[in-house]
């Protein structure tokens, strides 16, 4: 029961403070789900991001669904209770949007250009960039890059290659994930 409340509270908070799109939300999900509660390991979290990239739907929904199920099942409950857990987590992450819509949608369009709101966003935008940078830095660990020299070198080469391909040449992320999966299978 406590676990359900924690799932609700955690994902409600993520929905409520999730400014700046899916990747920025990732940083929050990681902070709560991996660092704080340990519901997932760092490498499990990375695997979910990969799976989210290759399947339809927003990454926030994908991770809430997966984490809700996994947290409950890892605590020793059955699959059915796990499904309930993923429903609770997914509902909690979208609930703030519903509440905000009812409370503010009437006023907000009018005040969107208000100087105070614009000032808040002038602080938020650089903050979100920092969140994104932190998400990448936190994930550069032994679990994702390997602890032996050989794996660390292969991982670093793949990292640099994908970074350049994505940033410079805008190669499709799904294609990059598939290529690296094949390379992983062949090299390890």
């Amino acid at each position, binding site marked *: 029961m406590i676990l359900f409340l924690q799932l609700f509270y955690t994902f409600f908070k993520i929905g409520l403070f999730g400014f700046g799109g899916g990747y920025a939300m990732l940083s929050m999900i990681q902070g709560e789900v991996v660092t704080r509660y340990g519901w997932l390991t760092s490498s499990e979290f990375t695997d979910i991001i*990969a799976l989210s990239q290759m399947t339809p*739907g927003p990454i926030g929904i994908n991770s809430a669904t997966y984490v809700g199920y996994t947290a409950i099942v890892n605590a020793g409950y059955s699959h059915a209770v796990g499904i309930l857990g993923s429903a609770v987590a997914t509902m909690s992450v979208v609930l703030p949007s519903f509440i905000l819509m009812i409370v503010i949608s009437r006023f907000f369009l009018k005040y969107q250009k208000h100087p*105070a*709101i614009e000032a808040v966003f002038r602080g938020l935008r650089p903050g979100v960039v920092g969140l994104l940078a*932190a998400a990448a830095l936190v994930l550069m660990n032994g679990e994702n*890059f390997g602890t032996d020299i050989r794996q660390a070198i292969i991982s670093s080469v793949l990292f640099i290659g994908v970074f350049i391909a994505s940033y410079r040449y805008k190669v499709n992320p799904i294609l990059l994930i598939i290529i690296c999966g094949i390379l992983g299978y062949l090299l390890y």
Partner: protein
Amino acid sequence: MNFYIKSFLIFSRIGLFTIGGGYAMVPLIEADLVDKRKWISREDFLDLMALSQTVPGIFAVNIAIFIGYKLRGFWGAFWMALGTILPSFVIMLLIALFFRQLQHLDTVERIFKGIRPAVVALIAAPTFKMAKSARISRYNIWIPIVSALLIWLLGFSPIYVIILSGLGGYLYGRYEKRLHSKTKEE
């Protein structure tokens, strides 16, 4: 067909066929609701888009909620949001049920050993793109650097960083305004 069932089906179809997150859905929603069905005018659509980006939460779900609410109030928002969520919920649940059994297989582990650094790179790359669109200059570059270091090295929760940077922006705005009115007086 009932309006709610139709909205649910439209958004679940769009949700099912867009891979790569919320922004990929925008042109599909526009083509369907603005151009084809004319349920909503382009001006209203653009306003709602801006609003969905401003409020926190999942962008794709926010769009569904705001369009649904504008058209039919709470239940419009409910069915459109449910349509957006359900396909990814079901797919991810299936993955959760089966992937957990597969992930310890040697083959799967080898594949994911290659994928993990790629994912980290795919998160690092948009950081720099976003820095451009957030107009990071030498005056405010300390904000992302300090935030990233607080989270990475000191284990700060990203939620506090969001609250602090929003609050900081607001206070700085007030300070600037006061400075501005002072120079006017002189």
